């Protein structure tokens, strides 16, 4: 880790100005659970940090109007246990509470969590001479054009959806998957003012430029997340299958929210995690459910539809089957929930 300068602004405007004053190596830092971690691995090499967590008023959770609005600095643990979120939008609450550990959820903010970087082992484990371990693997995210060691390598954890010849790294988050299912919008502030961004537009596919993971400008800062209130929220779940029961990244996960009358599905929102290069909206699975009476078989068929375009590698083929079954289970769990 190289020496850093550290600034602690108290307003968004000050933060943007501080970012500009620190020059090219400036980065915003919130909880630090991704950025500081990657600095210790010598992957992120900022020369200046703008700590946004001392900005006042950015941690507000507002569920009073037609929308849910989460200030970017609201802690993951706090949004997870907000009474309205817990009771009316279990998909959001569960996505947060199944992520990481309580310690990290107390640190990480719901805004900066959207910018969590991949856990691909060839990306993370290596390069740094000291704390980064002994390895040094080709990775197009780390060094554009250096190649992808995961393709043809140990790829059990890699993505099967949205992959390219340059990268198969999984988008690691849980919270972004739930937000994609719920069509959240992101409030972004930058030197030129504020803008709203549908969350689906935050994450580009890797294509030939896997090092570009987010569509934000470096100077831009996430200030809030907005979700239109909807009836599907109450009949929802975030189902996450991992290599252990807790404190692990998803092998496959599914955010599912349904509107139903009787057994009939009127609306479906389905997104996938752990299997794709970005939070993955499963339109084909949704389409298969809408207008039909839900059965176990239909749920399984919808799960399979979600993976129709999957491109497995050497040893992650099981994710296609596991992912389909995870979606199917999530659909049935969500359906069993009754709106209040």
């Amino acid at each position, binding site marked *: 880790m190289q020496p850093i300068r550290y600034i602690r602004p108290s307003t968004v405007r000050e933060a943007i100005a501080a970012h500009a004053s620190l020059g090219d190596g400036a980065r915003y830092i919130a909880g630090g659970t991704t950025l500081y971690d990657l600095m210790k691995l010598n992957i992120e090499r900022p020369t200046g940090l703008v700590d946004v967590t001392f900005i006042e008023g950015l941690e507000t959770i507002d569920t009073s109007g037609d929308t849910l609005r989460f200030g970017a600095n609201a802690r993951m643990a706090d949004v997870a246990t907000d009474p309205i979120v817990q009771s009316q939008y279990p998909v959001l609450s569960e996505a947060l509470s199944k992520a990481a550990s309580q310690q990290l959820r107390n640190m990480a903010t719901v805004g900066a969590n959207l910018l969590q970087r991949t856990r691909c082992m060839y990306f993370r484990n290596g390069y740094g*001479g*000291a704390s980064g*371990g002994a390895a040094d693997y080709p990775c197009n995210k780390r060094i554009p054009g250096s190649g992808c060691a995961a393709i043809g390598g140990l790829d059990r954890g890699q993505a099967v959806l949205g992959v390219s010849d340059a990268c198969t790294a999984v988008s690691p988050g849980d919270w972004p998957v739930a937000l994609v299912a719920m069509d959240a919008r992101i409030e972004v502030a930058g030197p030129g003012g504020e803008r709203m961004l549908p969350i689906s537009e935050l994450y580009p596919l890797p294509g030939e430029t896997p090092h570009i993971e987010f569509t934000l400008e470096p100077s831009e800062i996430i200030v809030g997340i907005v979700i239109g209130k909807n009836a599907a929220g109450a009949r929802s779940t975030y189902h996450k299958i991992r290599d252990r029961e807790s404190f692990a990244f998803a092998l496959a996960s599914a955010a599912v929210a349904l509107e139903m009358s009787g057994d009939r599905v009127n609306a479906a929102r389905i997104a996938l995690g752990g299997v794709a290069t970005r939070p993955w909206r499963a339109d084909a699975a949704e389409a298969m459910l809408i207008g039909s009476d839900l059965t176990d078989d239909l749920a399984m068929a919808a799960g399979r539809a979600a993976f129709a375009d999957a491109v497995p590698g050497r040893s992650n083929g099981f994710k296609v089957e596991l992912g389909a079954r995870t979606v199917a289970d999530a659909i049935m769990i969500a359906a069993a929930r009754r709106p209040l």
Partner: protein
Amino acid sequence: MQGAPFADRARVDALEKVLGKPIYGADMPLPGMLHAITVPARIAKGRMTALPIESAMRVKGVVRVFTPDDFGPAPVPPAGRYAPPPPMLIWDITFRGQPVALVVAETLEAAIEAAEVIRPEFEEQPFSVLADADNGVVRDAVDDVAAGNTMAELARAAIVIDQTYTSPTQHHNTMELLSTTAVWAEGRLTVHEGTQRSSGVQHDLARALGIDPAIIEVKSAYVGGGFGQRGPTQCQTAIVARAAMILGRPVKLVTPRSQIFHVATYRPMSVHRIRLGADAEGRMVAVRHDAEQEQSRLGMDPPPDRYHDAPPRIYGIPNYLGTSTYLRLDRQNPGFMRCPHPQPALFAFESAIDEMAIALGRDPVEFRLANGATTDPLTGNPLSSRFLDECLAEGARRFGWEQRNPLPRSMTAADGTQIGWGVAAGAYPSMMVPSIASFRVSADGSARIALSGHEMGQGIRTAIAQAVLKHIDIDAERLEIAIGDTSRAPQHITVGSWGTAGAVPAAEAAARRMRARLIELLDGRNVAGNAHRQLAAVRRPYLDVEVAQTAPGQDREEALSALRRGGYAVGGPEYPGFTAMSYIAHFVEVRIEPRTRRIRVPRVVSIADCGRVISPRTARSQIYGGVVWAISATLREETEIDPRFGGYLNCDFADYVVAVNADIADIEVGLIDKPDPMANESGLKGLGEVVMAGGSAAIANAIHHATGVRVRHLPIRIEDLL
């Protein structure tokens, strides 16, 4: 000679531990401390051709960068298997991650920054790091282990199970990072380090640094988990010690976990082909066990023939043929990791036993009971004690085994969850090491005993306290137990479940002798009160005794001399006239989710036979730990190696998945607590390793019972059941 069962007592160092007070290797605060970090090689094999350090030296706060030029040639290895030469910095690279430079700086931040800017140049040679990758593997067989006429009996057997089972590379991952703090002051070298082998480290350092062992002290009072990884002298120790001697200031190195994966020992991948034959009456008659295991190019430990320690001594099978082969690769030395040989060997063997019971239509508990043993087929000598049948019977009773439907896939819950019940037995050699114990009781109310032992959490301090307090009435609160410190007593390596057998009989003997000396001293007077009061009454400030003890059959002088030299002097499990083994029976329930096939272990019952139980509370905790290790090794852990690069890809706690709290549910443990009549004066047998033995097979057998799927590799993961 062996008395009543010991009473329950709280762990004697628990109070310090809940206060966060123990000083582990990296916790010793010292004025003027410098911080160090090693730079690892990024090739698997070859030579470092250049090591530019100018940019590192320009980093503010850097004091010095050590290179191979600062070190002489590595010392010649001494005789004895447990003392490989301590690694120094050298130009030749034999494994990926080998340290090539040491940065020392005023702060940790500066040391890391400087290490990151060092870019050594290498000349890489072709290498082979996986046994199944290509033809770079050298197969290196050692002598067979044989009893009877196995091949003929297998040919005659009515039924033969012939299967191959694989156990992966796994890393210990003690919670405490490997570290060394070295101080060179007033002509003495003091090393604070979590090691299981203080005196061995002391003598290895003396050889590596060319100094007299008498001026070296190694202190390892608390070890934050050992599991065998801290048995060999660690990679960084001599390098850090030399840096401290050259710089004249204390130097501390805390090895990052990612580097530990690359420089420390690990459980090597091993493959076990088992051929198990039974006669027409369903009596097991012969076993052939072909074991092969990863090893570095020159390494010796772990020796593969020790996969044959446990399987022949569980059941009365007269014919046993064990072959043993090293698979030599371009890796760092593997080592002993908790339950080292029996863990993979019994995953194979006890899975095969289950397969045989099923093939014969026998209940797996009843089948095991029907194949009891009294004799060690490898020596023809009796087993000193074997209460495995009691473990099986008690475990079956507590588990409710009689409710089990024997048919696979027969116990399905209403929601489709598949339930499976499995059983397996385990065994581990019960060994013993020499010890020299010095014991002082003072009139001021204090007492101290110094002897060999390292406290890694197994509870050896508590066991020593129990042993002492059994024989003499002293103030337990003021009993100091000095272990892991070469300045207090010579320290034998504490591994292989022999810590208690080394320490407790010696502590009991010391306490008995102290009592006898007190009686002599009182000379018939009747003085009320404890030993401190008695000493005060006769105006003696303190009384010292010293005892030296060796294992049955050991040459006393030779064993004590080895102990004093930091060497290796292990008795058993084959003692003159008998063989001593510890035993355990594991009963496991698994539940398999109907659609996503997650495997859960809601319930385990494990009953152990470790002879006399010295410290019931810490012994129970050892069983809990062994079961957690079994669950973790069976369902979670595998170190992943990309053969194109070498090294270990999943080298952190996020990617090397170990069991967390949510993975562990109800575990019920029990101890038979019957003294072994032969093994030692205390009647105890080892416990810390056997607690894991057979656990993997019990889980795999339960998974088979639940699903009908027989998985013959570890770890068993979700994709195996989809």
